[in-house]
């Protein structure tokens, strides 16, 4: 096993996953390419969504890739940080809204 779990150089090797089970891998990359094309959303808007999701899933490869991509597509720093806050708000909210479940259970178990 490597000494670190993440190596920035591995990002460039992402395409190599098609060396095993190429049919699945190729379908994934075709789909991926299609998703990020300019469509009902602009490519820049999609890059910002991807950046937010990258933070939510805490993927360092994705953060690296989509920070570059957002800059390249002309997003500004404030838009990028707002996108990260959207991810944080949803993650925080998702934790907190379960407080209702907790309260329901408290009610069930207490007099």
């Amino acid at each position, binding site marked *: 096993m490597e000494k670190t779990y993440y190596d920035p150089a591995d990002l460039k090797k992402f395409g190599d996953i098609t060396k095993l089970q190429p049919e699945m891998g190729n379908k994934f990359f075709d789909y991926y390419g299609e998703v990020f094309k300019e469509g009902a959303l602009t*490519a820049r808007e999609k890059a910002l969504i991807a950046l937010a999701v990258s933070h939510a899933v805490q993927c360092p490869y994705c953060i690296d890739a989509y920070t*570059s991509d957002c*800059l*390249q597509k002309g997003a500004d720093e404030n838009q990028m940080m707002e996108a990260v806050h959207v991810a944080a708000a949803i993650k925080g909210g998702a934790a907190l809204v379960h407080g209702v479940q907790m309260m329901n259970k408290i009610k069930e178990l207490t007099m």
Partner: protein
Amino acid sequence: MALSATSLHRQKHELSEPAYQLTVLQQGAQFPEFAAQLQQHNLYPLKPTGATILQVNVGKMCNQTCRHCHVDAGPDRKEIMTRETMQLCLDALVKSPDITTIDLTGGAPEMNPDFRWFVEELSKLGKQIVVRCNLTIILANKKYHDMPLFFKEHKVQVVSSLPYFAASRTDAQRGDGVFDKSIKALQLLNEVGYGKAGSGLQLDLVYNPSGAFLPAAQQSLEAEFKRRLKSGFDIDFNNLFCITNLPISRYLEYLMQSGNYESYMEKLVDAFNPAAAASVMCRNTISVGWDGYLYDCDFNQMLELHVSPTAPQHIRDFSLAALNKRDIILNQHCYGCTAGAGSSCGGQTVA
């Protein structure tokens, strides 16, 4: 990042030497040779399609010292074109009707004391005149305040750098306060009709990335610039040109200092696009240096890569027919013009 107030030339920086820059560019043995790349696509030797643009660099003097400047221009640069050399350019244009556009660049071209005379003479020849105006020069001194009206009088197409629609990234590249002054200058150009529908006065903006990344798709970024500049500052303009930064001079220094050189070259090489290679600007442009020497482009000029020895070397010997037969001089920096959707002084080269 703080901007250095002096040019690399003044600092006697090793990267102010074209030969040293070429050595750096050649060191990346992991990158395929640009010429070999063209050969693979049947584009080598690269030949002109026929020059229609004469780009004249009237001098390295500038009121700004931008972080990415490929000219290494600044207030401390004194190399500027004389009126005699300008006259040689006019003589060359008279005998070359196929050249329809003259593109004036610098430095800040307006700082050349013979700039107005040159534009007036060019205007008499009936050529389309482009001036690459850095905007802040209009406000830099009272003697430039009437520049928008002067441009209007000669129907000059004004092409101006504005790397971003916000101060943060503009000032990081071009200097503190440049964004606010640029906005003011754009408003002054709009006031005399520039960028307004139906005025016939064309105002184009140039975007180049403030950092080690490639530019966005031009059409999409143009829409975003138009929206942001209109809503934020009531500014109108015609086209946005997306230009890729080439790894030479001060931008090369930035790449090396920030540890981005190899990854940036890799980005350029990975994004090599044969369609963009076929439409590079050196195929329809000839570049003239402040001292009258001829080059394939302004970048080659700064690297002191003169036109092929088979062609006339100086504007005094100008022959369009002979120049149209030359082989274009290539080096590793050329990857900057062939990445992605391509890059030229007129922006993206392929749709």
